[in-house]
């Protein structure tokens, strides 16, 4: 951990070597924002407003509108204020409910598996007696280099019954003909793609934190006669807590926006419908059904759920920590 003082100690000799001039402008370190220095934050502020705040605001506005066709639906349709009706149709829509249910199940499969594997392999590879630790780390991290859609296409090939070497392997093991894209299997197949992509990445986050645990803590544990496993439980896991909180939070956010993998698999199997996840449904409503207002309402609901779940998760975790 670099403290400010350590850093300053390293940097100050150069500054101190200069002739000391009396303070002209400020008493304390330059702290108040001037017009010139505000220029440093302006580019970010502008794009943040234009491409994050504004679209969300505009989507909220649109979500309250609706199309009303005059006459018997033959005349030109007009845009009217629709109140909460888009929200109501989303919440009561069976497809939307099913989509929410699917990502809930998907999250229950995907998050424990991804984080569990990441933790397991971060801990194993932290033991110095293991050979080729660096090589293993690189191999586990490698799938993360492959973009989601491309990874999805790769696995879609590997799942297709005509092509799949994994189906061949399963039948060789005596599991019979398993269709990895069948309605029951496909959620596991999607979870597998996501675990494959993210387990090694999360492992790397945990590894970075493990490397920062000071040596004295281990020595103390060794004097107490801790074994390897107890050492992991008593020292490493508590230290990993903030990193685990962050990885779980990002996994929750990632789960809620699930789109790329189902999009790709929907091309090769009817088990993945165009309303498979809420995000996919929003896309379908906007671009297949031309109902932008309904799509906007779904996006807003999804954004609210994401923010609410993240907030609840962080609150629960922090309350536990405070206890």
């Amino acid at each position, binding site marked *: 951990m*670099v403290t*400010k003082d350590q850093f300053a100690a390293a940097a100050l000799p150069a500054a*101190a070597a200069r002739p000391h001039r009396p303070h002209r402008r400020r008493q304390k370190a330059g702290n*108040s924002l001037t017009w010139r220095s505000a220029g440093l934050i302006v580019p970010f502020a502008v794009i943040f407003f234009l*491409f994050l705040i504004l*679209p969300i605001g505009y989507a909220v506005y649109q979500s309250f509108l609706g199309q009303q066709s005059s006459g018997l639906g033959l005349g030109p349709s007009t845009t009217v204020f629709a109140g909460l009706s888009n929200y109501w149709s989303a919440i009561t829509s069976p497809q939307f409910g099913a989509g929410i249910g699917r990502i809930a199940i998907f999250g229950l499969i995907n998050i424990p598996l991804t984080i569990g594997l990441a933790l397991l392999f971060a801990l194993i590879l932290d033991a110095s007696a293991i050979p080729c630790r660096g090589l293993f780390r690189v191999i*586990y991290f490698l799938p993360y280099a492959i973009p989601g859609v491309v990874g999805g296409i790769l696995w879609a090939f590997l799942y297709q019954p005509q*092509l799949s070497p994994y189906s061949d392997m399963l039948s060789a093991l005596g599991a019979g003909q398993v269709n990895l894209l069948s309605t029951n299997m496909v959620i596991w197949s999607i979870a597998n793609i996501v675990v494959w992509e993210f387990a090694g990445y999360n492992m790397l986050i945990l590894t970075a934190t493990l490397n920062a645990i000071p040596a004295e803590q281990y020595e103390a544990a060794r004097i107490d006669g801790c074994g390897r496993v107890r050492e992991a439980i008593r020292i490493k896991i508590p230290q990993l807590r*903030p990193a685990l909180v962050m990885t779980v939070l990002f996994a929750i956010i990632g789960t809620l926006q699930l789109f790329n993998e189902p999009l790709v698999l929907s091309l090769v199997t009817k088990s993945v419908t165009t309303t498979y996840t809420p995000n996919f449904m929003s896309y379908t409503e906007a671009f297949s059904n031309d109902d932008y207002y309904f799509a906007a309402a779904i996006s807003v609901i999804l954004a609210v759920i994401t923010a609410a779940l993240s907030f609840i998760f962080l609150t629960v975790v922090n309350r536990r920590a405070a206890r």
Partner: protein
Amino acid sequence: MSPAQARSLPGGSRRAASTGDPASRIAWPNKAGLLLVLILFAAYCLLPVWWLVVSATKNSAELFATSGFWFAHGFDLASNLRELFDFQSHIFERWILNTLGYAVIGSALATLFAAGAGYVFAKYRFTGRRFFFAVVLGGVLLPPNVLAIPLYLLFSQVHATNTYWSVFLPSLVSPFGVYLCRIYAEAGVPDELLEAARIDGAGEIYVFRSIALRLMRPALITVFLFQLVAIWNNVLLPLVMLNDQHLYPITLGLYSMYASASAIGAPPNATALVVTGVLVSVIPLIIAFIALQRYWRGGVAVGAIRG
């Protein structure tokens, strides 16, 4: 914890403590078991990539007829590559260039903007600082896929969809980058040094450019990498914004190739072309990632420890 520190301590003091200590050695049956687990997981990670390499050397007929994990008799990689780059009058090259434009230029600019904002949040006091930073953090919770359709609605309102800018501009926002830069600037850019420069008569912008940016370099590389991945992983945004195939990034291009290869009546070698395209797009990424691996470890630690 700073990234610089994380990297300068590869073995660290505690490693030295644990290797020399006989009590820390693992008994060999356990060690063999652990190695087996490690190798199995490595196989899980690598098998799809191996399948990809093997399959890119096959034509479509062999792809469906031969075992997935080993080579066929013919070796068609060269002809697959030739066909891929000739596909639709060299559109694949265009996609590669587009991807570089969206992802590399986009994340470079995003990093610069995030650095400026993070530095201001770390080093200046102003009214509403806490509030604005909370708003930026709220932005971290809004994933790109949730934003894509609202962005489309906004861009279509100003008739700017199906342009390079409609994908490029939204990619410049990196709230997580601002967060990382702020944490890093607080710990890694000493006030004393900034003050010394000011006393020497340096302007605020000059101080930022010549001192802060230099000290923040490890964080900037991490922010750059995060944003790069975020941009090239985001396929929904180009998917909703772009109609013109000439504006596609590789990911969307491969998706459209895969969609037409999966449709009925696809040309005979379409599947082999997609496989080859996936391989061509993946190999440079894998090499880049392995080369830059150490920056990931350092950077994510900053977020993890404070997060």
